């Protein structure tokens, strides 16, 4: 056939040019017959007032009909408008084209040999939901047209139709797709005004992150999200899930660090009735709840070693065995994991399984800390103030001095600390403007370090407030111990509760 069902649009165009240069048009049967050179007809069509050919050229059209004359006629008209065309004479052929080519529009005969047109339509929408399908119906039957529209067809045309009717409908689709594309661009612009999805930031570091998120969203591989506490690892995980093909499926987040170790197993894998005292009925695990969608394992580095092997087995075998159960349950989940710990080091120390690390680290991305993207601070401050205005109904703004100080501060607790700082300042301020005095002491005290010595009345270089020294000691210890808070509390000689209270105060508690 002239337009093979496989190959790229470019190849199709080359094939087409080759066939027309000899003044012949080849039918599906492979036989050639001399005809009026199609180039001349297409040339004449190109003179017709129609939409911008270059715009339509971006679109791939698949024509599915068992009638050769209709297939080829429609193809020539569509090519005249500027579509790249593909033809198929049956359902199987159509599916092959759909699998190998990015088809934008399908012109589909409802009455096909073998698998019927409605079945083909269903399959097209299943494989490529965004594809626009126009059905050609032979019966003028309202019933079949309604059925097709219900199954997602964009429009229908009743046979017999002429060239003008066909051109009109193809033009309409072109308009529709242009509009959708403009909307998409607009949405993208709105999105990039602040960031990606719910993530806020326009710094080069964040733009790079959005590109990786976008790529990760369209794959089904596990993603390991790395970043300091408070950088928004869960937000990134949600963005990956909700901007990809799993967006309509469940997203289940589990914080491995906050679960009681003895409960993690039953939470993840579920349990059967009688598995332990109190298990008076079967309960599905979170992995099962996420079936078909995404499970987000936050603080994966905190997962006990014995459960690491069980999780690895579940991911490899794609099945789970509930606690106390003997029967394996198949699962199909995409795994996103996050940690603020150095997992490579944990692997070297033997606290994290190497095989699980490799299984999770297929794709990895690192979220920049807030101090690495300070230019996003005004945007983030504006975002949080706007959100607070919406929830409280009170308009707030920030003084230049306060913002300047916030820009100089290092934000060890990252976005969470910044958010906490804004909320606190809004609660404390008596007027509509947030001033330095409304900011937390840790930020206020930072001023003294940040200000040049010449600006201060009394030189105090090297002198740190006790509160700041304490903060640095706590955060430094946690960093040195790769996030092990219990060990940090022990070595600092303070209680676990005190450490958590302090971290909460600093806005560094995840």
């Amino acid at each position, binding site marked *: 056939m002239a337009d093979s069902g496989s190959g790229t649009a470019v190849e199709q165009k080359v094939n087409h040019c080759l066939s027309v240069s000899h003044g012949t048009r080849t039918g599906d049967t492979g036989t050639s017959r001399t005809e*009026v050179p199609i180039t*001349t*007809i297409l040339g*004449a*069509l190109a003179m*017709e007032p129609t939409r911008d050919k270059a715009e339509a050229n971006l679109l791939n059209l698949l024509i599915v009909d068992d*009638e050769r*004359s*209709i297939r080829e*006629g*429609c193809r*020539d*008209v569509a090519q005249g408008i500027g579509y790249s065309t593909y033809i198929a004479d049956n359902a199987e052929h159509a599916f092959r084209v759909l699998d190998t080519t990015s088809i934008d529009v399908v012109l589909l005969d409802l*009455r096909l040999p073998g698998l019927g047109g409605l079945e083909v339509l269903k399959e097209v929408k299943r494989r490529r939901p965004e594809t626009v399908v126009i059905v*050609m119906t*032979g*019966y*003028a*039957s*309202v*019933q*079949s047209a309604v059925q097709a529209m219900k199954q997602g067809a964009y429009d229908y045309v*009743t*046979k*017999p*139709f*002429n*060239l*003008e009717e*066909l051109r009109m409908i193809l033009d309409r689709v072109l308009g529709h797709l242009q509009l959708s594309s403009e909307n998409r661009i607009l949405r993208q612009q709105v999105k990039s005004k602040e960031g990606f999805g719910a993530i806020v930031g326009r710094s080069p570091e964040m733009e790079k992150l959005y590109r990786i998120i976008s790529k990760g969203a369209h794959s089904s591989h596990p993603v390991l999200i790395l970043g300091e506490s408070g950088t928004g690892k869960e937000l990134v995980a949600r963005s990956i899930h909700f901007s990809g093909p799993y967006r309509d499926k469940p997203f289940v987040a589990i914080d491995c660090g906050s679960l009681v170790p003895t409960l993690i197993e039953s939470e993840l894998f579920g349990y059967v009735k009688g598995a332990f005292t109190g298990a008076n009925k079967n309960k599905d695990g979170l992995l099962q709840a996420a079936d078909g969608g995404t499970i987000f394992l936050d603080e994966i580095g905190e997962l006990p070693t014995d459960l690491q092997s069980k999780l690895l087995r579940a991911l490899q075998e794609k099945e789970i065995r509930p606690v106390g159960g003997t029967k394996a349950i198949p699962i199909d989940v995409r795994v996103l994991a996050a940690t603020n710990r150095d997992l490579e080091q944990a692997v070297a120390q033997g606290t994290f399984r190497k095989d699980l690390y490799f299984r999770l680290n297929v794709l990895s991305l690192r979220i920049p800390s807030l101090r690495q993207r300070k230019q996003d601070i005004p945007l983030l401050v504006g975002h949080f103030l706007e959100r607070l205005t919406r929830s409280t109904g009170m308009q707030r703004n920030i003084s230049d001095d306060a913002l300047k100080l916030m820009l100089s501060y290092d934000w060890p607790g990252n976005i969470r600390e910044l958010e906490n700082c804004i909320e606190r300042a809004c609660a404390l301020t008596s007027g509509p403007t947030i001033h330095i005095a409304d900011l937390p002491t840790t930020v206020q005290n930072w001023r003294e370090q940040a200000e040049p010595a010449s600006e201060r009345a009394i030189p105090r270089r090297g002198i740190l407030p006790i509160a700041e020294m304490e903060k640095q000691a706590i955060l430094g210890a946690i960093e040195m111990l790769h996030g092990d808070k219990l060990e940090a509390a022990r070595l600092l000689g303070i209680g676990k509760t005190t450490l958590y209270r302090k971290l909460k105060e600093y806005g560094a508690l995840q």
Partner: protein
Amino acid sequence: MNTNAGNPELPGKLDGIVLDGDSVRAMRHNMHELANVFTGVMIAAGLLSQYLEGGSLAPYASDICEESERGSALVRELRGQLLAACGDGEPSPGSLPADPTPSQF
């Protein structure tokens, strides 16, 4: 139903034909085939007409366009009648007006 009005050559006893399911199916199939034929002709004729526009052969192409449009209109009309008589679901015995006027054929 008096289906003989305006058609003196057909006797009034040909008031209606009762069709069984198979006949309805066969008629639908033929209608579909006819619709396909006319679609192919109309598109090819339209392309040809554009190519020949202004030339000495253009009137012939134009005639094909016009005649195929007429043929298509008849197919639509016949299909409408079949639809009215038998519905568009699974064929069941239905009656079809048996007096197509000359303008319909």
